[in-house]
């Protein structure tokens, strides 16, 4: 802590509470001194502060002490009056305005950082003009009537030697009429020390003799000691320059060099000496004397018990006097005033003990008198006396608080005094490091006047910084408050200054509400003072004000654009936050050797393409020896890893713009910022687009001009409130070199340009290199090696429907086009779903049109296609594309399975005589199809019970489509082995002709194995192709059947087969069916052209199903004629058993004689083993069969009547049958009478084992014999 005397308050008190000297001078004196640019008082002022006057003083006590520091205050007599309130106010305002002009130039700089503020000391934080302001503020209260320290102690009468009759002038000067009113009113004591001074102007040499004469006259008239001569202006030329001009700090309006130009060093010395002498010889002794006199007088009247009581009694008597605050009740001669004068004189002579005791004495009196203003003034002085004498801190504070609150109680009149008191109090607290309390004192004296409040609040805010620890929140708050007050009284400069400091507090916080307010207002104010650049810079901070209300956002934006307009140019702002660019959404799409047919194909994941292209692009090893190595030779290493793109082909960037506001904003001219450097010397920039703050229109010209080595796309869009938009920007290089995408620029509402640089931003570049090599930095992903123009194949599949039914067969054309002049060759294509798409082997257009071309023509060409298929389709060698010619290649599409299918086509091609960097390219096409379910077929094949070569086929069809119905056209078996035939006429199978949605249908067919029994390995060619197809339509008899042997049906069937392929693919006992259907004609008359023409449904590897691993048939005559009169009839039968399984089968046949129905009920057909074909032999037989079938589960009555037969021959036979082979067993029955016999009374017991002679069987079972009717008739 500083010594109280050396604290700023101490210095202030020394200056402010010091003896006043009233100066009375003639106009000629003033004239003399005005030669120096100074008035008389001003000339003397610098010499009134004595730092070491060293005068011995003895006041009340016997103790002598020495005064060290002493100050005199000189005032012209005219100034000794209470200042006019209005004038004072204007003067204060002037001080502030002046200070504001001074700070104006600092406003452009960046706001101070909070750390800087904290590290600074007090004097650096608070502006220096505060002290000046405070001094002025205190000065407005000088010469008040309730205080005595402004009472003039002495009077200096000055007359020039040029004056006529100087002696009379002296008398005239102290004429009561000319004295200040305060002295005449009796507030101040007019009997004061007088000192006479004769001024002699040395430039005026003529009066020299006169002067000495006048002086001697003066001395004789006024006394020797009271008269002095001051000779000035010794310099004849008047151009003396002073090092460290003493007047400079007192008068700043005039240039310092002019001040005192006529005064030589001797003159100054003389003035100094004069003042020193005046103070030490006259004023101090005079005051000393007066203090002693007053003290004596007061001791006599007021001290001591008797006097106290008397005084009390006397005051009581005055109680009826009304409470008066006017103060006029006390004249200078009243006892109270005398005591006050004693106190103030003692204070000025630094005898604080005496001062305190006097003040204490008087304060009770004032209190009793309810003279509150006087009371408060005394309390104030007591507080200061306590402070400066370094006594009780508590007492001092108490007194100050008391004074302050008493002044406050007086209302408006006391407020000024309260302010001064508060300033002193605050200084006192500051001196004791109680900054927080000081701040609250400043806050108390804010008052209502905004300008005053602003200054006080600002001072309070600095106190909060100086508090340990700093209270930055309050600092900011008070600065903001102060700024608002400054703004109210149009002190914009100061308002900006305070807000600027406040920014340092709020800058790094997330208190966006406050932050937006501060930035917005400071921006507005900067605009008021015309610093639009800075205004814009500050306003930019509030643009991202998504948390504000909509109306606030509108105000922000409107004002912002107004200010931007005022600047009259287009600012380019790096990091403009409206709209916000989502960097995670950034996606780079470019084409190197991989080219994309469409947007959709570019977005497909790279790995899908890679796996697809594995077979067709040159392998990595060979590739390395080819182009990669060459590239590394040709190019500097640093470019080896950059991405490659081709001249004339655009690089696309997708990014997302988001509007954080609730109001819509228009964003225009969005384009990329790129650099293209020449390949040869990479240091030289061909064009640099990243000039940091180049402004406005000319910039735009550069980007759009034709001279540019690349062209940029521009996008305009409007973002609604909170909207996000994905925007695609492109850059197309037109020269070789290194292309770098640096950033993006856009125009906001046509008035401000936002720039965003992509530095160190993670990007999802769609490049396989970036995925393979992790060391690639994101900026590398935006760097491209531009190589010279290459042919680029464009391709599309025409008329590809996006929605079709499963099984739909379409004829499509793949159109390929190469726009460049250089040819491409060696085309290869790979399709991700060979099951769906099948390229035609040659280019010709279809002659008969689709779908007729698929139908069987008159000339049957049953050329078998080679079935070995590769997934890569190589175009014929002679296909080469160039110029405008386009290649139209037919494709077959068949929607194999329902669902959403992504079809990927990749076409590989090589370029001739071009760049060594890129030898080949691929064209990638991606289409997605939606395949709807249509007819679903399932086949069940069961062996015919009676014919080993024949099988029953049950076909179940369900229409799974939602709305469309289908007609069945044709059913075919694939291959030459199986012939198919109808069991019923077509009309009975399908009475309604078409299958409605959701309808199911079962129908039966018979297929026949056309191979010769026993010779399984040989292919039978005896079957006619026509036997493999059945037409399932009745109308349109002329319509031909579809040829399933030829492409494309056959090839699609192949792929279906391989798709459904199982391990036993080659199993001969499978049947493949193709069902061809078409959309029922009436079902959907609209959308005619997109209707499917035909649909093919393939069902492969249908196995012949049965529950037992064997099938057998009992062969023998169906009808016999026998003469029973001769003998019973023996009939030879033959049982053929076929092993249909893969295992070894052992079968034992047990024939049962006797009552067949008791032993085994006749198995009903279809009950156990599925479908049995009962061959129609005769009408009669059929009838029986029907009877049998209709009485299922009941013992047939006919059986009872039928005469029995007996099995002759062995009753039990056991045979072993090899897998998939057959054996014949002879059987014999004996019949005794004519009749119809059911030869079903036998059982087959079978055991199946994996190996021959295996002990354990995997399965076994017993089969009942099935009905086989034999009619024996009596022969004629």
């Amino acid at each position: 802590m500083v010594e109280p005397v050396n604290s700023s308050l101490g210095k202030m008190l020394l200056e402010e509470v010091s003896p006043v000297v009233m100066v009375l001078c003639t106009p000629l004196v003033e004239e003399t001194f005005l030669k120096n640019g100074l008035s008389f008082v001003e000339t003397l002022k610098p010499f009134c502060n004595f730092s070491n006057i060293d005068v011995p003083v003895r006041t009340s006590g016997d103790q002598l002490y020495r005064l060290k520091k002493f100050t005199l205050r000189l005032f012209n007599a005219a100034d000794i009056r209470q200042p006019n309130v209005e004038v004072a106010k204007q003067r204060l305002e002037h001080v502030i305005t002046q200070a504001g002009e001074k700070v104006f130039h600092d406003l452009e700089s960046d706001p101070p950082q909070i750390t800087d503020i904290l590290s600074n000391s007090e004097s650096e934080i608070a502006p220096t003009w505060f002290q000046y302001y405070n001094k002025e503020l205190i000065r407005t209260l000088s010469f008040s009537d309730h205080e005595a320290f402004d009472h003039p102690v002495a009077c200096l009468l000055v007359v020039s030697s040029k004056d006529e009759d100087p002696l009379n002038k002296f008398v005239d000067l102290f004429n009561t009429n000319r004295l200040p009113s305060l002295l005449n009113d009796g507030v101040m004591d007019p009997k004061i020390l007088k000192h006479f001074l004769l001024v002699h102007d040395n430039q005026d040499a003529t009066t020299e003799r006169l002067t000495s004469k006048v002086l001697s006259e003066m001395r004789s008239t006024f006394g020797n000691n009271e008269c002095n001569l001051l000779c000035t202006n010794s310099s004849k030329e008047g151009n003396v320059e002073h090092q460290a001009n003493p007047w400079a700090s007192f008068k700043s309006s005039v240039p310092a060099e002019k001040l005192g130009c006529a005064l030589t060093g001797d003159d100054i010395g003389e003035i100094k000496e004069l003042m020193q002498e005046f103070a030490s010889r006259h004023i101090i002794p005079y005051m000393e004397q007066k203090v002693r006199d007053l003290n004596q007088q007061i001791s006599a009247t007021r001290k001591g018990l008797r006097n106290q009581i008397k005084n009390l009694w006397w005051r009581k008597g005055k109680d009826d006097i009304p409470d008066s605050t006017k103060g006029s009740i006390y004249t200078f001669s009243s006892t109270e005033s005398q005591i006050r004068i004693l106190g103030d004189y003692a204070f000025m002579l630094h005898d604080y003990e005496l001062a305190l005791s006097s003040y204490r004495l008087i304060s009770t009196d004032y209190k009793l008198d309810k003279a509150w203003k006087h009371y408060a003034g005394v309390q104030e002085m007591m507080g200061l006396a306590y402070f400066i004498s370094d006594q009780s801190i508590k007492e001092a504070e108490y007194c100050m608080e008391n004074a302050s609150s008493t002044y406050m109680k007086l209302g408006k009149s006391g407020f000024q005094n309260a302010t001064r008191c508060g300033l002193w109090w605050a200084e006192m607290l500051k001196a004791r490091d109680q900054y927080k309390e000081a701040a609250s004192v400043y806050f108390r004296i804010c008052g209502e006047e905004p300008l005053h409040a602003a200054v006080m609040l600002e001072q309070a805010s600095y106190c909060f910084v100086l508090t340990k620890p700093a209270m930055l929140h309050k600092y900011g708050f008070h600065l903001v408050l102060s700024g608002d007050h400054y703004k109210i009284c149009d002190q914009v400069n100061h308002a900006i200054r305070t807000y600027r400091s406040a920014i340092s507090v709020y800058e790094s916080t997330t208190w966006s509400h406050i932050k937006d307010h501060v930035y917005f207002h400071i921006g507005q104010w900067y605009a008021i003072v015309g610093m639009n650049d800075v205004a814009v810079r500050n306003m930019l901070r509030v643009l991202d004000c998504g948390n504000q209300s909509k109306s606030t956002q509108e105000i922000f934006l409107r004002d912002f654009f107004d200010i931007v307009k005022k600047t009259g140019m287009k600012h380019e702002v790096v990091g403009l936050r409206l709209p916000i660019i989502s960097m995670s959404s950034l996606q780079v799409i470019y084409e190197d050797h991989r080219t994309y047919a469409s947007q959709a194909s570019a977005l497909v994941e790279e790995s899908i393409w890679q796996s697809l292209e594995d077979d067709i692009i040159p392998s990595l090893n060979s590739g390395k020896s080819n182009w990669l190595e060459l590239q590394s030779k040709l190019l500097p290493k640093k470019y080896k890893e950059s991405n490659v793109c081709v001249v004339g082909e655009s690089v696309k960037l997708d990014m997302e713009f988001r509007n954080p506001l609730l109001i819509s904003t228009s964003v225009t001219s969005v384009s990329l910022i790129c650099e293209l450097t020449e390949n040869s010397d990479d240091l030289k920039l061909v064009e640099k687009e990243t000039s940091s703050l180049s402004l406005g229109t000319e910039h735009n010209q550069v980007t759009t001009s034709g001279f540019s080595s690349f062209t940029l796309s521009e996008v305009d869009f409007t973002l609604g409130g909170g909207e996000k938009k994905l925007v695609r920007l492109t850059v197309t290089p037109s020269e070789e070199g290194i292309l770098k995408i640096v950033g993006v620029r856009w125009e906001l509402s046509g008035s401000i340009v936002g720039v965003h640089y992509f530095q160190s931003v993670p990007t999802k570049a769609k490049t396989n290199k970036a995925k393979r090599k992790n060391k690639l930095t994101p900026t590398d992903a935006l760097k491209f090696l531009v190589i010279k123009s290459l042919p680029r194949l464009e391709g599309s599949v025409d008329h590809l429907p996006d929605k079709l039914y499963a099984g739909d067969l379409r004829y499509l054309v793949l159109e390929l086009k190469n726009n460049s002049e250089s040819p491409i060759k060696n085309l290869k294509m790979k399709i991700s779903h060979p099951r769906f798409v099948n390229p035609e082997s040659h280019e010709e257009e279809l002659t008969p049109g689709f779908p007729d071309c698929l139908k069987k023509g008159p000339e049957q060409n049953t050329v078998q296609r080679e079935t070995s298929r590769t997934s890569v389709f190589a175009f014929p060698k002679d296909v080469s594309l160039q110029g405008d010619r386009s290649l139209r290649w037919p494709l077959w599409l068949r929607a194999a399975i329902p669902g959403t299918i992504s079809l990927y086509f990749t076409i590989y091609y090589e370029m001739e005589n071009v760049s060594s960097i890129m030898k080949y390219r691929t064209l990638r096409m991606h289409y997605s199809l939606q395949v709807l379910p249509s007819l679903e077929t399932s086949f069940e094949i069961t062996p015919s019970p009676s014919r080993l070569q024949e099988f029953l086929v049950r076909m179940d069809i369900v229409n799974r489509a939602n709305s469309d119905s289908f007609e069945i056209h044709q059913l075919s078996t694939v291959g030459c082995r199986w012939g198919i035939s109808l069991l019923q006429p077509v009309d009975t199978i399908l009475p309604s002709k078409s299958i409605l949605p959701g309808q199911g249908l079962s129908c039966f067919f018979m297929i026949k194995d056309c191979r010769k029994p026993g010779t399984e390995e040989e292919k039978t060619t005896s079957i006619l192709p026509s036997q493999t197809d059945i037409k399932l339509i009745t109308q349109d008899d002329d319509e031909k059947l579809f040829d399933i042997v030829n492409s494309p049906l056959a090839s699609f069937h192949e792929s279906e087969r391989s798709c459904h392929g199982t391990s036993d693919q080659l199993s001969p006992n499978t049947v493949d069916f193709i069902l061809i259907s078409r959309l029922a004609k009436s079902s959907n008359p609209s959308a005619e052209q997109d209707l499917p023409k035909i649909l093919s449904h393939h069902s492969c590897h249908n196995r012949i199903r049965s529950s037992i691993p064997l099938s057998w048939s009992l062969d023998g005559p169906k009808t016999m004629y026998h003469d029973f009169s001769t003998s019973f009839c023996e009939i030879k039968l033959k049982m053929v058993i076929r092993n249909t399984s893969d295992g070894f089968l052992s079968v034992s046949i047990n024939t049962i004689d006797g009552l067949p129905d008791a032993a085994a009920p006749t198995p009903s057909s279809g009950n156990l083993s599925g479908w049995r074909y009962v061959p129609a032999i005769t009408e009669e037989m059929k009838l029986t069969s029907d009877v049998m079938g209709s009485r299922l589960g009941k013992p047939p009555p006919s059986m009872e009547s039928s005469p029995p037969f007996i099995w002759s021959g062995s009753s039990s036979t056991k045979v072993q049958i090899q897998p998939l082979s057959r054996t014949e067993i002879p059987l014999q029955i004996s019949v005794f009478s004519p009749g119809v016999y059911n030869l079903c009374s036998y059982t087959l017991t079978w055991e199946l084992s994996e190996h021959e002679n295996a002990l354990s069987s995997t399965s076994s079972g017993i089969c009942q014999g099935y009905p086989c009717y034999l009619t024996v008739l009596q022969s004629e």
Partner: protein
Amino acid sequence: MIVCVAVVGHQNNPLYIQSFTEAEDALKLHHIVHCSLDVIDERVNNPSKSGTTMNEAFLGLLYPALNYKVYGYLTNTKVKFIMVTSDLDVRDTDVRSFFRKFHAAYVDAVSNPFHVPGKKITSRTFSESVTNIVSSYSFN
């Protein structure tokens, strides 16, 4: 009447601030809340001055502004609750119980697994329950 409640994170970042006045004085209340952080810091750093409450979360009256009284509460995780009321005659026990309920609501809100600690509380449930608590206290 409670005019404003706020939750401030341990880095003095606002997590939740809600005023309950009709007038457009959000900015003023923001400033008041922001300023009271200084007082909280002071209280926490000089526990001897506040004296009474070593282990208590309730910090008491922070400072009386012109028309308001500001109360504070500090949780164990150094999250500050600040309440501004326009009632000038308030009993400490009422404020205490208010803060206890408020704390419970806060704990519920941050226990949400989707809440990111240190980020603003956006839960609608939280603001509803705060509104309920606030409306149930009138202090008079």
